[in-house]
């Protein structure tokens, strides 16, 4: 290979990401870039082309990453190769964000011209700064009536500490400022500088499973060259594979003879399962290995667990197969079989966070057509037993007998809540009520405050975020990071239906809140569970002590009175609807319980979790 030509090519590569808060217009901006670089013919443009899954499009969030190669003919007459690396926009996926940022030399920071800098933006900008990226601020949506670019510029300078004088003013929707931005990418973002002759060092920043080719890795080559036929090794787990294909996404896969230092592309090597590869791991050659891996590897660990059960227990195998399929594309999803007395056979699944959990649940129901019962999300508790051992408990019903427990620890997070100053009081009141411990408070400017609290993760999982949104009129944003375990006065609360304890409804609560929460749950269940053919008592209990009780009255009358002048099909429809509704319920002992009841235990009404 001609090293000179390769070096010349390397000089014309620019690798960058777009960092933005959800809704600040990242996907639209990416679409405009694709359009302007003629990567996608305009007539083929489907709005927001980088977000491929339906769910992503619906929720306006990006889950899987994409790296697209674009050719840009610059004003200086030269042609540049751009690699646009898309990043997920949610805190649950911050590790994936950090890995894709590590594949870049620069980042475009998109800030909404009206809303300004948000906590989420900050978190990702810090990740970008952490990766030594050159940052180009772009103020988007300047066509909005409420746009205030000068204020936003000041925010960028004060809150983030980067120059914003020459920020690009853009409207991705209207196509304003896009070309300026592309020119700035060439002038501001450095070309990659990796040594083409050094041993191969490439970072895996994403992976997807393809049923024909096996796992397809998204990689950034830092040093050396990789081509089909090479024997490669994963530096973390030591596994070796033979490369079958390399190429770039443009945005469809285009085969290449090799990928070299500076390139961002894909690689396949007949890798059978996604668990063999980990995002953040480094690829090198078996016979000429790199000395050091790319820094920053971290094992992704689930934070939130819940039980997933098929409503129809004969669908257990289908659920397992569907979870396996999802795991092919989601290295962070974990699951293992578990059994519940109430719900039968199912899986205890681990997720990076609540959004991740919601997304998986929805995909199972939508793509695989499964009716599921989800138990309330739980964190992992550490039970310190009297015999000196420690037990990890991800399922509340498995909490050991109180008599054998010395103490219980729960995960705490370092939560940073960014909020306009007028809501500081409300935030502190809420955090206090949720067992938070105040750390510091920082005025970012006259009007924005960053309030730091130490909070139990379980409270965040419960309803903290919803309460935060409602008590700050939606202005607050939350970012959090696990900081470790602390001892708390926790107890297991059981729920009894018709006198029988239902394991799937057990939860771990703080002693001081147990009575109140017990009443809430019992009341909620009373409303959610339809009348049965007999009266059903609903009780909350700690050990043998009943702390709350309500009765679901017996069904007294349910018979269609009339025949509608011989319109039998109408009657049939009604009966079929009733029957279908019943099938979606789970028989617990002799009580029919609707799916929502199982979620009710740890969620308040109208819960919209971190969806947007």
């Amino acid at each position, binding site marked *: 290979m001609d090293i000179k030509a390769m070096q010349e090519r390397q000089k014309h590569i620019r690798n960058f990401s777009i960092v933005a808060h959800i809704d600040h217009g990242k996907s639209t901006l990416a679409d405009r870039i694709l359009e302007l670089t003629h990567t996608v013919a305009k007539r083929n443009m489907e709005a927001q082309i980088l977000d491929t899954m339906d769910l992503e499009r619906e929720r306006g969030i990006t889950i899987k990453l994409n790296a697209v190669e674009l050719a840009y003919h610059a004003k200086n007459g030269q042609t540049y190769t751009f690699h646009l690396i898309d990043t997920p926009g949610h805190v649950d996926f911050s590790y994936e964000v950090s890995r894709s940022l590590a594949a870049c030399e620069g980042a475009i920071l998109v800030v909404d011209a009206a809303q300004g800098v948000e906590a989420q933006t900050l978190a990702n900008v810090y990740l970008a700064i952490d990766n030594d990226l050159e940052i180009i601020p772009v103020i988007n949506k300047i066509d909005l009536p409420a746009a205030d670019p000068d204020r936003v510029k000041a925010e960028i300078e004060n809150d983030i500490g980067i120059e914003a004088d020459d920020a690009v003013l853009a409207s991705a929707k209207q196509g304003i400022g896009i070309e300026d931005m592309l020119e700035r990418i060439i002038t501001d973002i450095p070309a990659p500088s990796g040594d083409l002759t050094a041993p191969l060092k490439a970072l895996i920043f994403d992976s997807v499973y393809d049923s024909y080719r096996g796992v397809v890795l998204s990689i950034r080559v830092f040093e050396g060259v990789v081509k089909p036929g090479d024997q490669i090794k994963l530096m973390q787990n030591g596994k070796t594979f033979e490369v079958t294909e390399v190429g770039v996404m443009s945005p469809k896969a285009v085969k290449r003879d090799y990928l070299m230092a500076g390139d961002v592309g894909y690689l396949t090597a007949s890798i059978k399962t996604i668990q063999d590869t980990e995002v953040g791991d480094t690829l090198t050659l078996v016979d000429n290995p790199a000395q050091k891996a790319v820094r920053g590897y971290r094992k992704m660990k689930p934070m939130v667990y819940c039980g997933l059960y098929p409503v129809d227990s004969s669908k257990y195998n289908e659920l397992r197969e569907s979870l396996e399929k999802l795991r092919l594309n989601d290295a962070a999803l974990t699951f293992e079989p578990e059994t519940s007395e109430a719900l039968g056979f199912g899986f205890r699944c681990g997720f990076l966070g609540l959004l991740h959990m919601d997304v998986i649940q929805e995909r199972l129901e939508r793509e695989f057509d499964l009716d599921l019962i989800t138990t309330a999300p739980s964190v992992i508790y550490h039970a310190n037993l009297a015999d000196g051992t420690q037990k990890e408990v991800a399922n509340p019903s498995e909490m050991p007998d109180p008599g054998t427990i010395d103490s219980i620890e729960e995960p705490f997070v370092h939560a940073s809540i960014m909020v306009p100053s007028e809501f500081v009081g409300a935030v502190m009141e809420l955090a206090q009520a949720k067992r938070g411990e105040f750390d510091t408070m920082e005025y970012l400017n006259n009007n924005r405050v960053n309030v730091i609290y130490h909070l139990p993760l379980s409270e965040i999982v419960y309803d903290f975020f919803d309460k935060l949104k409602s008590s700050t009129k939606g202005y607050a944003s939350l970012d959090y990071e696990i900081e470790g375990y602390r001892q708390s006065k926790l107890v297991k609360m059981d729920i009894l239906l018709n006198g029988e304890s239902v394991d799937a409804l057990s939860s771990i609560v703080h002693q001081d809140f147990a009575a109140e929460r017990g009443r809430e749950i019992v009341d909620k269940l009373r409303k959610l569970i339809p009348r049965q053919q007999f009266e059903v008592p609903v009780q909350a209990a700690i050990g043998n002590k009943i702390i709350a009780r309500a009765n679901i009255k017996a069904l007294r009358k349910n018979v*269609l009175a009339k025949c509608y002048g*011989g319109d039998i099909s109408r009657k049939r429809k009604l009966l079929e609807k009733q029957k279908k509704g019943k099938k979606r319920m789970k028989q617990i002992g002799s009580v029919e319980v609707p799916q929502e009841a199982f979620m009710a235990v740890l969620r308040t009404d109208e819960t919209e979790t971190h969806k947007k």
Partner: protein
Amino acid sequence: MTTGAYVHIPFCQHICYYCNFNKVFLAGQPVDDYITCLLKEMRLVTAAYPEKKLNTLYIGGGTPSALTVKQLERLLSGMREILPFSGGEFTFEANPNDLLTTDKLKVLFANGVNRLSIGVQSFNDDILKRIGRTHRSADVYQAIANARKVGFDNISIDLIFKLPKQTQADFAASLDQAIALDLPHYSTYSLILERQTVFYNLMRRGRLPLPSQDTEADMYALALNKFSAAGRQQYEISNFAQPGYESQHNLIYWRNQQYFGFGAGASGYLGKTRYQNFGPIQQYLTPLHAGRVPVFRRHVLPRSEQIEEQLFLGLRMKAGVNKQQFATKFGFSMASLYGNVIRRLVARGLLAEDHQHIWLTRRGEFLGNEVFQAFLLDSDT
């Protein structure tokens, strides 16, 4: 095979707050054209079934009694001429306030109508007002006196319970007043909240104070007891009669037998096909003007649905479903298909059985839908 015909008159002078049957305000409607087309439909459809004879006729609505004397005369004489009906039960639905004089009643009687179904709903004037009825209880007495004077003896009235703000005492009073009229037949229905009604609208805004399910059940129990004590035996979930006065036409539905449906939105069941006519008046009239039948949809019942209907309709009757008839009709025993279902329902006290029949227990009558659903076939029955 017993066959009936239902004739739908979709016009009303006033729309009741709970009704979502196919109906429109009378004013400005092409009523005369409708009657012409209705008769045309009867000619077209009966010509296709030359072997069918009709055992019962039923004119319902809407408000059939809202037609003028002249219109009634034309409709009824036309029907008698066209339809292969040579006597048998002939029912006409009427509002009390259309029977305050005897002129319409006379036309009905002269044309062979021999059963009246009068929409009384309640004897409490406040309640009548609240549910959008325009008649008052005094009208009911006048209407029934007139009907008897003209010669009608087979008269039925409807009562509704679980009405907004209705109490157990209100309903008890209405039942007593109804029974005091000493009619041979009564129907009583609990309110069904339907979409596209005033009530549904109120309910959505939280402004429909309906009695609780417990009160509803108590009201139903009260009706069962009072009618039984008065010698009006229950023969169907909502129907009560002196022996010999059971509605032959309604029994056709529950026995899963055949009937024509004439008129806008009417349903029929012929051969293995259930069909329904276009509901909107113009959509109903247009094909008939062009000499075509106004059928909106047809559904050929698969065997499974015929079986289900035999049961969920048949079980509405006090007599229940006959096992031998079932086996003869479908070629296998009820037990071979529903053995488990029946056992389960019997164990839950909802169903009873002997060698000949299965039928609802008293508890089963209250929870009929629980029973009917169980007879719907699906992959895991």
